[in-house]
Every structure is written in structure tokens, then in C-alpha cells.
């Protein structure tokens, strides 16, 4: 199969190797971020509370590996090299970071909105 290049510099690899690798990095990075966010109670990076975030993180990492090695049969032949690994891993990680921040923001926003609604409901019942 013919080799393709990105911007004439980075090897894009054969078939779906590169998109699958980026998705693999994004899923694995998201898992690692959830695990760390759970360990250090960083609610800006996860929508889950502490032990659940760690479980979800570990499960995502395992899933990323199982999925990537299952869908990508040509891993034992020459493929991506040093520079490509760095760039594509970086893209995957950034994607995972942005996704984690958005997810955490949405979860915190809805939790805040329901807390406000509860408080105002309590307030109105006390006034009556």
C-alpha cells in the first residue's frame, strides 16, 4: 500500500493506522486524566466523584488498549516513528483534555443548577 504524508512531513501511515492511533491516545489519555482527577479530587477535569473517576479512568485505559490491538492487526510491521508518535499522541492528549474539561464543566453546571433549584424550592416552602 502507498505511504501518505501529512503536510509533506509526517507519515500518515497505511490504512486507518494513524486515525486509530490518535483515537487510542485520546481514549487512553482521557482514562489517565480521569484517574488523576479522581485521585487528586480535581473536579475541573472529571464529572465523577473520587472512587468512580478512578474506576472509569482505569476502565478507559484498558478499553483503549484492547480496542486498538483488536482493530489494528498490522502493529508488528514498520509503521509510525518518533516524530509521528509525539505529534499524534499530543493531538490525542489535547483532544482528551478539552473533552474532559467540557464534560466536567457541563456536569458541574447542571449540579449547580439543581442545587440552586433545590435551595429556592426550600426557601419558598419555608415562606409559605
Amino acid at each position, binding site marked *: 500500500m502507498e505511504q501518505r504524508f501529512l503536510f509533506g512531513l509526517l507519515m500518515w501511515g497505511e490504512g486507518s493506522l494513524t486515525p486509530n492511533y490518535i483515537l487510542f491516545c485520546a481514549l487512553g*489519555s482521557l482514562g489517565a486524566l480521569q484517574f488523576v482527577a479522581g485521585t487528586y479530587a480535581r473536579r475541573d477535569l472529571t464529572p465523577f466523584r473520587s472512587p468512580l473517576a478512578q474506576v472509569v479512568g482505569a476502565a478507559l485505559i484498558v478499553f483503549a488498549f484492547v480496542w486498538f490491538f483488536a482493530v489494528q492487526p498490522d502493529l508488528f*510491521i514498520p509503521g509510525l516513528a518518533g516524530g509521528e508518535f509525539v505529534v499524534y499522541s499530543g493531538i490525542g492528549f489535547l483532544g482528551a483534555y478539552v473533552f474532559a474539561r467540557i464534560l466536567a464543566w457541563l456536569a458541574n453546571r447542571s449540579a449547580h443548577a439543581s442545587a440552586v433549584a433545590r435551595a429556592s424550592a426550600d426557601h419558598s416552602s419555608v415562606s409559605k
Partner: protein
Amino acid sequence: MNPDVIVFHWLNDLTGVSPLLDTLARYIVNDYAIPALFAFIVGALWFAGSDDAARDRFKRGVLFTLIGLLIANLIVKLFWMAYFRPRPFAVEEGVKLLFYRPSVSSFPSEPVATLAALACGVFLFERRVGSIMLLLTFLFAFTRVMAGVHYPSDVLAGALIGAGAAYVPLRYVPALHRFNTHLIGLAKRFGLA
């Protein structure tokens, strides 16, 4: 006979003993599994820490780890410009391969230098995670020899280069501490911290 070659043959003879061991070795030795796992770990450690001081310490550790990674790769490339050592499968008789045939110099091992730089870099600021990474690096180096793509001295040299590249800048280049403070400030400004 050269002890390097003797040890190489001992380890390479483990190939083909058991299909299970061969499969396991293939999953460890390939270009994707352990390097990607290390990338996930280093990336996530950037966000670790329960208070501001701890977070700052983790960020500095990650930056020094990345600097070590860069230096290790530069040293390996310089070695390659000065010296070419053929791969064992190209020179030795009866080598059993579990891997494709890399064309770059066998000495020093670039993937082992890369993983050792990452593992030692993390070990210097987070002992528990760093120990696991060091163990995986040892396993990876062992498997590279077993798979027939490196001599033991290649992976040993790679490991020493990686460890040195992680340790020396942290201990002996104070200017890098100031540079990292600047980078962390920049990352915070762009919401990446």
C-alpha cells in the same frame, strides 16, 4: 566469544519456546503499547497534585522529564552519526525474530533510551509510578533482546543514556528551573494547567 553475543543468544533462545511467551513478548516489544502507556502517564501527571505547591512540583517534574526525553534522543542520534552497529539478525547465525527488521543502528537502543528517560524522569519526582515505569522499561529492554533486534549492550547503553539525560539537567542545570517556571506560567495563562 564476546559476552554480549553469548547473553544475546541465551535470551534470543527463549523465542519459540512457548507460543504464549512469544505472543506476550510481541505485545510488550512493539512500538505502540508501552510507549503509549508512558505518554498517558506523563500527560496525566501534569494535572496531579492536591494543592498548589504539589501541582507545581508535578508540573516541574513533567517538564524535566520531557527535557530528558529530548536530550536522550539527541544523544542517540549523535551516536548514530558517529557509529553504525549492525543488528544482531544481520550478523549472527540462527537468530529468531519476533519483530520487523529495523534499519537504523543497533547501538544504542533508541526506544530503550526514550522509555528510560521517561521512567527515570518520573521516578525523580513520583517514586511509586516511576518504579512501575522502570520495571516496564526493564521488561521492554529484555524483550527487545529476546526478540532479536538488539544486543544486551545496546539496551544497556540506551538505559544509561536515558537515565543520565533525566538526571543531569535536573541536578546540574539551574537555568532550566527558571525556564520551567516561565513555561508553567505560560501554561497557566492559556488554561493548560
